């Protein structure tokens, strides 16, 4: 068994309004950072998982991200595995 470090990024789907991202983007414009053309807010989760292979880890983490970490009605997620610790 190995321990893998993983990062799950949860973002609102492009079709879902993101009032937080919009507010941040407006604040940036007010501060003069006009080169920032868009901001979308999200959440990042760092996990460690014990698994016999990276493939098994990926399978389990996908399920965790789908079942708990994100709400598929409004959110998408991306999974990155850093590899064997």
């Amino acid at each position: 068994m190995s321990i893998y470090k993983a990062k799950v990024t949860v973002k609102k789907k492009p079709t879902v309004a993101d009032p937080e991202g919009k507010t941040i983007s407006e604040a940036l414009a007010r501060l003069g950072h006009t080169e920032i053309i868009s901001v979308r807010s999200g959440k990042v989760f760092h996990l460690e998982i014990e698994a016999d292979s990276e493939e098994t880890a990926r399978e389990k983490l996908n399920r965790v991200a789908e079942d708990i970490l994100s709400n598929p009605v409004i959110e998408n997620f991306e999974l990155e595995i850093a590899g064997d610790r």
Partner: protein
Amino acid sequence: MRVGVVVFPGSNCDRDSAWAVQGVLGQEAVYLWHKETDLQGVDMIFLPGGFSYGDYLRTGAFARLSPIMSSVIDFAESGGLVLGVCNGFQVLLECGLLPGAMIPNRHLRFICREITVRCERDDTPFSNSLRVGDVLRIPIAHFEGNYFADEATIAEIEDNNQVLFRYCDSTGDVTPESNPNGSSNNIAGLLNCGGNVLGMMPHPERACEDILGSEDGLGVFESVLKYLEGKAALV
């Protein structure tokens, strides 16, 4: 009638909800702790407002995993009445008893004020004492009450007449200006297809006595009572 008010860690409208049932309507209310699974033979489940599990991860996300919720889902699926208010509505969305999800209010503010909603149906267990077009004054108090569902789901909801309450102005017109939080189609109260599960952001339990500024929420409780009595008379 006997109403079971579910208490999650972080619920804060449980007492008000029980008071509306017991103190105002003179019916029986029992508290159901989230770790229990026995619904104690209640006629209706009330999922109260508050901040269950600190709203961690998403509103209602952890409440859905409570032992009591498996019993509540079974109860709802066998036709039992379930009313979720505010955080209770969010829990119903997270556990899939109602379609869609909540996102933060359009203007990113916690809104705590009285609003008006229009009643869209008078043929449900929650609204048989109301009339279509009735305008109810009921308070809202939430940060995430901006109802969202994709276009196909919204179309389905409208085709099935699942909207029970819509945010409206004082004359009953449903307008963009009367939408406090940005909800799709001004949805304030949503039914499941069977009509036995209702989620609503406005707090009817906070509008059951004149001293609180409005008695318009009482109609929801009275409807449930009337429905249950009618059902009992048939047995």
